[in-house]
């Protein structure tokens, strides 16, 4: 849970060596950093929102799946790379690590769903939530046991020389993060809106009973939802670990913030999660210097935003205006 002081989120661009030119440039820099951070949040938020859309419960263990994904990615990358320093092989190894981690995490997500949530599908609302907290605890402490508590650096798969455009510094890893995130999101949008399985998914989230009557295998759809969500989380975890390093409790805070992002956009809404993620990233990156919030309190912004959103517009920005029956 505790973030080491030097790993505080938002310390996103350590490469800005030059002195800032003017306020506009400084804030552009914050916005660019926020955009990068936000696209990671968006990827992770998708997992929350998809599961919530179908099962109506918060998958608390999602953040820890992200952590497992980062560890798998790191270990695969290091194993593949060995002593090689060839630039093209580094990039290829990174992409292979990304895919391996996504696949293994998809299996992990399906396994968690089968073991910890499926038996509770008809229980009261509290039961799957408690079970999810349990799974989260098992994963994060299991990782601490297996991998140790010290944090590890995820090496950049390329020379990370910053590029300066109009005084705003952009590093290649930021570009990589945004490209991977956008590709994943476009693929997901296509899958959900254009394929048969995506249609089944949308139907299931509208009405489980009726979808079952229409011949949709609801169990399979739910399994698939967990698989996709966890794969996205794994990718998000690897991207996040460039800046935050890899450690067993990395998933808790990042996961929570991604959840906040999902709520901002309207939980259960896929494009909402993307929007919310980017918004939260920018808010966090710009808000801290704007409001002069000390470093240790930066995490507070996300929760303050969460509470404000829930009070003002609980359905989120793009959420359907579903009347709550209370």
């Amino acid at each position, binding site marked *: *849970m*505790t973030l080491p002081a030097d790993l505080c989120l938002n310390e996103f661009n350590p490469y800005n060596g030059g002195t800032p030119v003017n306020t506009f440039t400084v804030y552009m820099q914050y916005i660019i950093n926020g955009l990068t951070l936000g696209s990671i949040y968006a990827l992770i938020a998708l997992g929350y929102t998809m599961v919530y859309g179908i099962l109506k*419960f*918060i998958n608390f263990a999602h953040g820890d799946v992200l952590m497992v994904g980062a560890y798998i990615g790191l270990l695969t990358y290091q194993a593949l790379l060995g002593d090689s320093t060839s630039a093209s092989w580094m990039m290829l190894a990174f992409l292979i690590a990304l895919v391996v981690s996504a696949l293994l995490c998809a299996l992990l997500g399906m396994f968690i769903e089968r*073991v*910890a949530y499926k*038996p*509770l599908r008809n*229980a*009261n*609302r*509290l*039961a*799957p*939530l*408690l*079970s999810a*907290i*349990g*799974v*989260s*605890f*098992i*994963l994060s*402490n*299991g990782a*601490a*046991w297996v991998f140790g508590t010290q944090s590890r650096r995820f090496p950049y798969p390329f020379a990370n020389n910053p590029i300066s455009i109009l005084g705003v510094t952009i590093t290649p890893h930021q570009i990589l993060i945004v490209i991977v995130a956008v590709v994943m999101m476009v693929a997901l949008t296509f899958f959900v809106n254009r394929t048969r399985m995506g249609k089944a998914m949308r139907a299931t989230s509208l009405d489980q009973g009726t979808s079952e009557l229409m011949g949709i295998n609801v169990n399979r759809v739910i399994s698939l939802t967990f698989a996709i969500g966890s794969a996205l989380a794994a990718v998000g975890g690897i991207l996040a670990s460039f800046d935050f390093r890899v450690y067993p409790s990395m998933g*808790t805070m990042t996961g*929570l913030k991604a*959840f*906040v992002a999902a*709520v901002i956009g309207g939980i259960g809404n896929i494009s909402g999660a993307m929007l919310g993620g980017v918004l939260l990233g920018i808010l966090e990156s710009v808000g801290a210097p704007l409001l002069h919030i*000390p470093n*240790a*309190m930066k*995490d*507070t912004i*996300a*929760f303050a935003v*969460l*509470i404000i959103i*829930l*009070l003002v517009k*609980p359905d989120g920005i793009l959420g359907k205006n579903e009347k*709550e*029956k*209370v």
Partner: protein
Amino acid sequence: MLNFFQLIIIYAGIYALMAIGQNCITGYTGMLSLCHAGFFCIGSYVTAILCKTFGLSFWLTIPVAAIAAGFVGFLIGVPTLRLKGDYLCIATLGLGEIIRNIATNLNPVGYQAIPRASLFGYEFSARGKWQFIALVWVFVLVFYFLFQRLAHSRIGRALNAVREDEIAAQSNGINVTKYKIGSFTLGAAVGGVAGCFMAAYTATVNPGTFTFMVSVMVLCMVVLGGMGNGKGVILGAFIIQFISYFPQLFGLSSIIPAQAQQIIYGLILVVMMIWRPQGLLGRDKFRYGIEKRRLAIPHKGARKEGGRA
């Protein structure tokens, strides 16, 4: 060995107090709150600061800590308790972290050498374990009976109604928001009282002790013993404390890693939810109407239980 058992009994007592508070929130009213460590923290800090800086007696700090924790609970509760269960869970989690953040910013090393509690000239030091056990468990029993009475009162029945079905409760004239906030405040206040004893026993407070893990541990106690069951919660506190001291008790701390107990907490939550969601002792059932009449005649044991409701 005896020392360790005494330690377990003391900590079980302190955590039982916390668990009684959490039980009021989660067991009676059905709200999943994850910031009990925060209230615990507030209680400890109030005792530490008042005793050390202002030289107040320990006994006076108990009501102050209860009021402070309760007030924070109230402040947190007013905006968040209108949220549904799972949102509430996240919001309280965040708030627990914020409280710890503030405590760390206040004083990163915490407070040491807090004056001990004393009664008629007798000082409750860490050495007199039996005396401290008596002190803590008197409070546990007092709170146990208070909350037992509360659960069987009109208020307790209203809280249960809110837990079972908010809409039905509202249509029966129960002010859902009021009862939710009330129960949250009360639970928070008891968490604060538990914090006082922690500060009095260890004589140190340190923001590092009030992590999310503590909140989950307390939740585990409630789930394990039985949500809404006073006795169950105390039993849960004993079991969890025993689990966490098990490696030291049998000299296995070099073999069993520190993470093992947290993994066990996680397993407890998952396994209990799947196989015995009502907890080891089950829920205190209120029996009305037909069931009550039916029970009143044949079973002697059930009659006692039923008659109380």
